[in-house]
């Protein structure tokens, strides 16, 4: 049995089901309790599980992560919410130094099964501090896993996987998708394994690698190119660390051309690593340079004309595909 769910409802359902399944799972963050979360992701949980498992914290991102780590060391599986991914910078040290290194420095004697949920991304009129895509910082740090679902199905399945994973997982949920992504989600445990990409569209001419809110416009662009005779294979990474190298190489060996699209800025966005790895390991398969089409190296402005000027969209992605196909 499956039902139609929004991306946001899929997140909520994953939290609800995991909390029902495992008494060690609890959520904490600002306004997650009585209010149900700034976006409603935790709605109903406070009523169902009470204030000791749905914890309204003071404003203190560093403490929120640190408390989660402490609880995880005693066998709990805390799911911490950053109200916006932008504020993860305030809990940065606890994530990159405390959580990411703990197992290593403990000689393998402990692990830190926390999830940090981070509502990210723009195209929502949020401006500089409610639109950021901070995923690359965490991909750069050993010891962390990073996921970024693009569909309701994955939002639920990856959140479940993240909660059950024994490592710290940063879960980027894209705000633009909350109510705009809708799709069939099976009842119960449809886990989406961490580390496995999804091929969203088959194609033999060009490979497009993307994730998050860029999957939809990428598919739209691929459809347009199809009318022009170019078939694009669209890979949705889903997990950014560890990313699915096999899926990428499989597709590339077929198409010999790769475009990477992301909403994060270009310089040292994930596209940089994917490009470098492809070149290092599959150089002979490339008929064209690996290309990147991303947010420019700037901040996220508020005004609609500015926001739209900076965000990749189906038009600009189609153009990038054309350039690559014509190379």
């Amino acid at each position, binding site marked *: 049995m499956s039902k139609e769910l929004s991306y946001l409802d899929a997140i909520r359902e994953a939290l609800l089901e995991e909390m029902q399944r495992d008494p060690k799972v609890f959520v904490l963050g600002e306004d997650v309790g009585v209010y149900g979360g700034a976006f409603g992701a935790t709605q109903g949980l406070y009523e169902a599980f009470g204030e000791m498992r749905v914890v309204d914290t003071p404003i203190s991102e560093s403490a929120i992560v640190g408390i989660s780590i402490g609880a995880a060391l005693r066998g709990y599986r805390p799911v911490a919410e950053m109200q916006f991914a932008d504020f993860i910078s305030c809990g940065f040290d606890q994530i990159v130094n405390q959580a990411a290194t703990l197992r290593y420095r403990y000689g393998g004697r402990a692990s830190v099964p926390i999830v940090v949920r981070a509502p990210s991304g723009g195209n929502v009129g949020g401006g*500089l501090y409610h639109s950021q895509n901070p995923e690359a910082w965490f991909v750069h740090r050993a010891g962390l896993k990073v996921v970024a679902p693009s569909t309701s199905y994955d939002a639920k399945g990856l959140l479940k996987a993240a909660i059950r994973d024994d490592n710290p997982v940063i879960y980027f949920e894209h705000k633009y998708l909350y109510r705009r992504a809708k799709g069939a989600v099976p009842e119960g445990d449809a886990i989406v394994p961490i580390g496995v990409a999804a091929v969203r569209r088959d194609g033999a001419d060009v490979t497009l690698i993307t994730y998050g809110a860029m999957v939809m416009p990428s598919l739209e662009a691929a459809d347009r190119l199809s009318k022009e005779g170019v078939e694009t294979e669209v890979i949705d990474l889903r997990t950014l660390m560890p990313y699915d190298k096999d899926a990428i190489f499989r597709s590339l060996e077929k198409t010999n051309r790769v475009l990477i699209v992301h909403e994060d800025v270009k310089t040292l966005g994930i596209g940089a690593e994917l490009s470098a790895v492809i070149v290092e390991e599959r150089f002979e398969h490339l008929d064209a340079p690996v290309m990147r089409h991303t947010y420019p190296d700037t901040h996220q402005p508020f005004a609609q004309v500015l926001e739209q000027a900076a965000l990749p969209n189906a038009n600009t992605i189609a153009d990038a595909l054309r350039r690559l196909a014509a190379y």
Partner: protein
Amino acid sequence: MPPIKRTKFKLVPEQLLEMFYWLKLIRAFDERLSVLVKQGKVRSGVYTGIGQEAIIVGTCYGLRRDDYICPLHRDLGAFLMKGVEPGMMMSQMFGKTAGLSKGRDSALHSGVPDLGIFGNTSMLGANLPVAAGLAFTYKMEKTDNVVIAYFGEGASNVGDFHEALNFAGVHQLPIVFVCENNQYAYSVPLEKSMAIDDVAVRAESYGFDGVAINGNDVLAVYQTAQGALARARTGGGPTLIECKTYRWHGHSEHDKAFYRTDEELAMWKSRDPIPTFTTYLRERHVLDEQKLNDIEGRVRSTIDGAVELAMHAADPVPEDAVTDLYA
């Protein structure tokens, strides 16, 4: 009628009327913004300070141009009092080029160095170390300038608050910390975010005085602020003034604020700073019908003019998404 105050810092009728004007103007500005949001004309999340105006007026009144203020998200009125033209302020909220940020921000994250206004990031509490840095320069220069730094009671739980106030205490900086304790941080009531009644006691941790006052009494705020400012200007170091108040609207205009009761809101509305002050002025014959009409007329035309200007101001040009990144 409010009790007659024995005041140390005397105010003549013209000054009282000016303060009255500011109260009315700031209230009207926020109320108009609230309407503009509902009409879809302003797209951003607007955080009004309706109900809290006495704090801004009481603390900003009489500041010098070369004093510095560090307001937070609800303190639009402080920008106005410190000299930003209403039309420019409104353009900022509309995301127009004529705003403070060239359309990059629609909130209060932009500052005006010439007017002594710092514009913080969204990160609560992050303005406080910057405020300490500004105050440190006044101390280096041995001027009698001051800094006023604002923050909500919720923000007083953030690490930056602690680090900043501690530094200010060590160096006995010329700074006044103003806590707008409006009882809630978004949906989270005071008692869930701290185990104390008065944020003012926190000053003791940093070696300076803290005082909790009625933040809805503009004269009480003014008198207390003047005392603290005089102390700061003469080398006596920082003061923390906690102003008890209440925000009438939701956290932002999108928030229905179901987490609080109608009774609570009604109780606080009965303590509205504006009618309280109106009565005070009338009974002392400072204000009469004629003057009231004049002031209300000035307020209306100022706001109308600001909206007019903002509505017709130019949208940013797409290129401005990527300019002003480096000096």
